[in-house]
């Protein structure tokens, strides 16, 4: 029961953090990076 409560707290905290991240502009940072070929990731640097 205690473990389920801990995971429940993390899950709800996670959802709240996602909502905060969606509204504070972080989503745009993720998108801007993801829609460009990551030269570091593919080994060009």
């Amino acid at each position: 029961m205690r473990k389920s409560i801990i995971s429940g707290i993390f899950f709800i905290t996670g959802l709240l953090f996602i909502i905060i991240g969606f509204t504070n502009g972080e989503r745009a940072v993720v998108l801007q990076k993801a829609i460009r070929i990551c030269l570091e990731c593919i080994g060009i640097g």
Partner: protein
Amino acid sequence: MVDLILKLKDNLRVIVQILFTVLTNGYVSGFRNGGIYQGSLKQICVPGLNCYSCPGALGSCPIGALQSVLADSNSRFPFYVIGFLFAFGAAFGRFVCGWLCPFGLFQDLLYKIPFYKKTKNLFGHKYLRYLKYIILFVFVLILPLIVVDIIGQGSPWFCKVICPSGTLMGGWTLTLLKPGLKENLGWLFTWKSFILILIIVLSILSYRPFCKYVCPLGAVYGCFNPVSFYRYNVDSKKCIQCKICQQTCPIEIPIYDKPNSLDCIRCGKCIKSCPHHAITMNKSIKE
């Protein structure tokens, strides 16, 4: 028909892995044109280690996204990515590794290649398994924050110098599709290719070496294994500690003693192998 259903049930995990890989890397135009998907779906993280520079990738890699936000010159706490990791970790733990990660699937397939002397774990496994936590802290969290250029912009250090998933799904694939990229390749590509080839060789010899020893995403999800909604339970009344679960486990985890080990990827082989059906899933939810 019954045989087919039984066969599907026996191979359910591989089927789910393949379907999820295809689903999250379904941008066929990327493979056709040598480009990447640039639509709004890319703001959504996929749960596994799936490089967003893969031509087919429809979502973002959570580890790549985490480093991007940390490395951004307008430093901010990465609420969205941390929230994603919390939510998926709390729900599934390392079930993601065993069932949803494309690079995990890749290693599973490599381990099926016959070799005269296979081993489950590499020499030094007891200590090597902590390496992924060091990689998580140093390459994913600290370096992107503190090693910055003149305008305060950092780099995704794990993606840059280590990630073999990025090399395989992004580097090698894009270089094949866009021959013009080859002119720009240098020592970094050589180094990352070396790491990928090493992981490929080790994955034939040993079970999932990248997941066990290197993957920072697995390190994060593993921390949730003891408490996640999806977890294993051992019925002490049925368990006779015969250790068949440990012998069957591809990572040799003593499941009878540690059913929710940080290293367990929830492949389910222990559950199938237990002669007394002492290992179950999700019973804890009912507690």
